[in-house]
């Protein structure tokens, strides 16, 4: 019933109109003059009324005003401002191309957005880092890495070097919705977490939303990482690429249909295996070890009102040899249709398919002893989003989403002495539907509101056998009640619905400062079962069920935003408090893989996270960059763990300081540096040993989890970029990047733990484990023509 009223509300919006014949609309797309890419977040300001809007993720804007003459000012950092005088006595279409500011100036600008966005925008707890900046930051082994770059933002932490994913405001890595052209990516890492799967040459825009999450986003409780691919140059053919220490890259962009369409194809592959081959002896010659990804996108404009996009990603890590194989990867495909209904109603319709799978194989199935295991999760979705431009001060967004999940945790067989053992687990099906409506409203010069609500409905669906579990002893594995309950195809096993209210307020204190407050509730129906310090590619995504309730989070945030010296400096201080419900933990010796009764190994508890984030950013001049400092805690409380007390999570880092500096004196040479200083990760140390069977075994008296902390982490990275004097093929550019990771060669601990000495079994010792134990220099060559 609730759903029905909600639908009614949403569809009535379409007919809403401020009934005034004397109002006219100017609308259109703003694009980059150099390559035709739609520009996101361009300010369109009406001088006469001192009001304005910003372009949406496709570069579209729409403003409705009383009839009259106006001057529109289009401004975007990194681009020359443009003014257009219009006479609005009928609806107008005004597309525009902005030219990048002359080379030298543009190079020193860190971000491409409205200059005073920090203060004026309703958004808070949002960080955008332009790809241009990410590309300049020093990177591990010289491989530009989107995920590692956002780890330097306030409120973002990680369990340690070499681990996959990132933690936002006390959430675990599975609570981030990582979107690549709107399709979710289930594993954002190559090589267990050392490199991210995003090809920097194919990414146009990156936005991390940590709070104040608008109603159109849902499905994860901690953050949204919205990655948008380049559309492809529609002005001229462009080839770019590079040779790095790990990957070699090649990107090709080309217009077609006289610039109405364009496409981009970008590929990367690691090539260590190719170089190593001649040096391997014959036993190892069939070894496979490489990872690659392919990103592609096509767009086509049909008339003024319609634009079509199709994009895809395919990436894979492959290891094998000697009868052994292990591979994993993501594949996503997205199709989008932008349609302008009236010049005030914009629609984006998205359909996507996303697949994550892995396989492990030992031996061949024809052999006497072998093992094979495939696991995958597929989600496909249909998602209409509408924006209705009611007035310059009021935009309404509404839409919905339907997602179909198909999880196959294990299709596995073990063969032992020619006897086959089927280890497969039953596939699980579910769907998730959501409807939302939100409004962004300006009330006068100094007050802006954004509010909305999202209703999400999750259904765990048959066919399949579902079990209840009974406690044997609290905190240990629960036993399934056999034989379980059978569900027919399409029947509902369990259903969960959640209202997710969202609201933000921006109170302009002055032209250069504002106070922002936000609240959001988010719900998550998909859970990554992972009990290890760093997530592994084998971790299984599991759907909510009769035993796993959805995770829910409530977050409030309050922030002060200040710009200084003509928007050259941005400052912000934000405090947040987050409560998390139905957080998953695990019984000791839990078995999360190939276990059809895995739900019996789960424990559920709650979480809390709170902190203060300080952020100062310099946007222009020869020296640009930022300093961020986060003071934060994140804890969980789970019955039977840590004596039922609150305990810090593995990614609880009270202090987290990041400095990013890019120095471009002009000329061919430029420099950059990162400095990171964080608290050591929490750890549990044994307090006592007891002897059993001639072994000294560990025991912790208080039975407390993570009540100690390992040493502080700090690291400096530097890089220098030298642009070639000679133009490539007379027109292109080339550069060489020298980078050094961990400049002062610090052995930062990933963990400290107790263990038994290998040689002397009666001896116990404390071990410090560092993932990157040394200084790592690298050279990368990039070109573009």
């Amino acid at each position: 019933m609730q759903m029905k009223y909600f639908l009614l509300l949403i569809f009535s919006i379409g007919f809403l109109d401020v009934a005034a014949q004397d109002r006219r609309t100017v609308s259109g797309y703003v694009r980059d003059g150099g390559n035709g890419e739609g520009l996101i977040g361009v300010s369109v300001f009406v001088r006469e009324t001192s009001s304005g809007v910003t372009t949406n993720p496709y570069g579209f804007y729409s403003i409705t005003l009383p009839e009259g003459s106006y001057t529109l000012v289009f401004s975007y950092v990194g681009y020359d401002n443009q003014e257009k005088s219009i006479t609005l006595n009928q609806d107008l279409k005004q597309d525009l191309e902005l030219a990048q500011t002359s080379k030298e100036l543009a190079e020193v600008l860190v971000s491409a957005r409205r200059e005073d966005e920090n203060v004026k925008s309703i958004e808070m707890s949002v960080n955008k880092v332009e790809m241009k900046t990410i590309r300049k930051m020093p990177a591990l082994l010289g491989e530009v890495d989107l995920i590692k770059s956002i780890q330097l933002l306030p409120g973002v932490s990680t369990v340690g070097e070499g681990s996959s994913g990132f933690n936002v405001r006390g959430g675990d890595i599975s609570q981030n919705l990582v979107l690549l052209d709107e399709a979710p990516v289930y594993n954002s890492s190559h090589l267990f977490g050392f490199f991210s799967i995003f090809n920097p040459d194919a990414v146009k825009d990156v936005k991390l939303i940590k709070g104040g999450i608008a109603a159109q986003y849902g499905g994860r409780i901690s953050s949204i990482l919205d990655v948008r691919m380049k559309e492809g140059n529609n002005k001229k053919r462009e080839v770019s690429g590079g040779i790095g220490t790990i990957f070699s890259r090649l990107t090709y962009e080309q217009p077609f249909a006289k610039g109405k369409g364009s496409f981009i194809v970008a590929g990367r592959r690691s090539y260590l295996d190719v170089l190593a081959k001649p040096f391997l002896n014959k036993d190892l010659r069939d070894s496979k070890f490489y990872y690659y990804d392919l990103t592609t996108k096509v767009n086509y404009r049909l008339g003024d009102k319609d634009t079509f996009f199709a994009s895809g990603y395919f990436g894979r890590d492959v290891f094998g040899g000697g009868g052994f194989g292990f591979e994993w990867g993501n594949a996503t495909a997205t199709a989008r249709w932008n349609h302008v209904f009236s010049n005030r109603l914009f629609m984006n319709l998205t359909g996507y398919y996303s697949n994550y799978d892995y396989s492990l194989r030992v031996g061949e199935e024809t052999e006497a002893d072998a093992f094979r295991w495939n696991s995958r999760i597929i989600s496909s979705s249909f998602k209409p989003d509408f924006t209705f431009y009611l007035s310059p001060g009021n935009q309404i967004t509404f839409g919905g989403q339907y997602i179909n999940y198909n999880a196959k945790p294990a299709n596995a067989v073990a063969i032992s002495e020619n006897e086959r053992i089927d280890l497969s687990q039953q596939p699980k099906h579910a769907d998730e539907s959501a409807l939302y409506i939100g409004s962004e409203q300006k009330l006068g010069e100094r007050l802006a509101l954004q509010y909305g609500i999202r209703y999400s409905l999750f259904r765990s669906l048959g066919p399949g056998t579902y079990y209840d579990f009974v406690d044997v002893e609290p905190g240990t594995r629960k036993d399934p009640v056999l034989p379980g309950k059978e569900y027919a195809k399409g029947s509902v096993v369990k259903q969960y619905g959640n209202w997710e209210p969202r609201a933000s307020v921006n109170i302009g204190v002055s032209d250069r400062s504002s106070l922002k407050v936000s609240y959001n509730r988010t719900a998550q129906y998909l859970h990554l079962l992972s009990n290890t310090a760093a997530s592994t590619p084998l971790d299984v995504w599991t759907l909510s069920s009769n035993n796993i309730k959805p995770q829910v989070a409530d977050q409030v945030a309050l922030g002060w935003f200040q710009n200084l010296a003509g928007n050259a400096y941005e400052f912000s201080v934000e405090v947040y408090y987050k409560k998390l419900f139905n957080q998953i933990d695990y019984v000791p010796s839990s078995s999360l893989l190939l276990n059809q009764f895995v739900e019996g190994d789960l424990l559920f508890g709650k979480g809390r996270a709170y902190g203060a984030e300080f952020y100062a950013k310099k946007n222009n001049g020869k020296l640009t960059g930022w300093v961020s400092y986060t003071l934060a805690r994140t804890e969980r409380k789970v019955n039977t763990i840590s004596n039922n007390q609150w305990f810090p999570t593995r990614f609880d880092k009270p202090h987290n300081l990041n400095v990013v500096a890019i120095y471009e004196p002009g000329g061919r040479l430029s420099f950059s540096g990162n400095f990171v200083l964080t608290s050591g990760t929490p750890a549990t140390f044994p307090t006592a040993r007891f002897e059993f069977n001639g072994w000294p075994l560990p025991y912790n008296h208080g039975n407390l989890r993570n009540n100690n902390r390992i040493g502080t982490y700090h690291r400096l990275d530097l890089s220098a970029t030298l642009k070639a004097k000679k133009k490539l093929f007379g027109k292109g550019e080339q550069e060489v990047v020298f980078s050094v990771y961990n400049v002062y060669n610090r052995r930062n601990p990933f963990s400290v733990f107790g263990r038994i000495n290998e040689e002397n079994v009666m001896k116990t010792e404390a071990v410090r484990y560092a993932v990157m134990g040394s200084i790592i220099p690298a050279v990368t060559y990039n070109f573009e023509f």
Partner: protein
Amino acid sequence: MIKVITMDFLKVNWLKSGLVLAIVPFLWGCEDVIDLETQTGPPLLVVDGWIYNQPGPQEIRLSKTGAYFDNAPATPALNARVWVQDNRGAIYEFKDVSSNGRYVWEVADSTMGAIGRQYTLHIEHEGEKYTAQNEIKRVPRVDSLIFTHESWPTKPEKGPKDGFIAEFYARDLEGAGDTYWIKPLRDGKPYKSNPVNISIAYDAAGSKESATDGLIFILPIRQSLTIGELFNDKDSVGVELLSINESAFRFLEQVRTEASNGGLFAVPFANIPGNIKSESGTKALGFFGASAVSRLEGRVDANTARPRR
């Protein structure tokens, strides 16, 4: 915790695969031994007892906990009264004849343990009464020891480059829920007895989740006699197959996890669950186990060994 048979398979094939080459440059990380100050709690009673269906003396060792990084031998727990009672009412007294905390039952020409019987351990120590229960479950016989020629791609740190993999063949007994502890032998004595090498089986595989009732033990379990290095020709190799109950299986599983639980894929530390209970709630650590034993020994023979797989 990654302990499924997958990982057992991985271990076997680890060195043979290119994975090492691919990952080592990144995952070698580095480990160094450091000094670490940790808090120490009050000393607790520790029970280290396992009885067998074999003739001869049986021993229950009692000691006290010490500081984890102390490395001093454990203080024995003396002056305790220790006895075991079986489900037929027979009582077996254990005496600390050497005053070193090793309480021994010994009656000439007699065997204490028998398959199918339940045993209760009783301890009275420093005013507290402790008990623990276990049973001796059935065990299948070990059919054979098989040796296979193998050579590593490069000279390994330990053992020969060209040598032999030893494996044992036995079939899990019909009926789900049999659990075993596999102990490798070298020259008739325990070989590489380190908790990280603990080999346990649930039916014929490494964990309860795989339905392997009544099968021949799977390859990684069979080959768990070969630990980190190959055997040489003429080496004396053997195996002891012990029946254990499910709580012993869980205990040993956790012992193995906590013996070296560090690095990228470590799981949160958890105390090892023992089976010692006390009358008034005083905490005691350790385990009282009971097993039936099958044993087989053999000698590597290059001439009869199977060719390399």
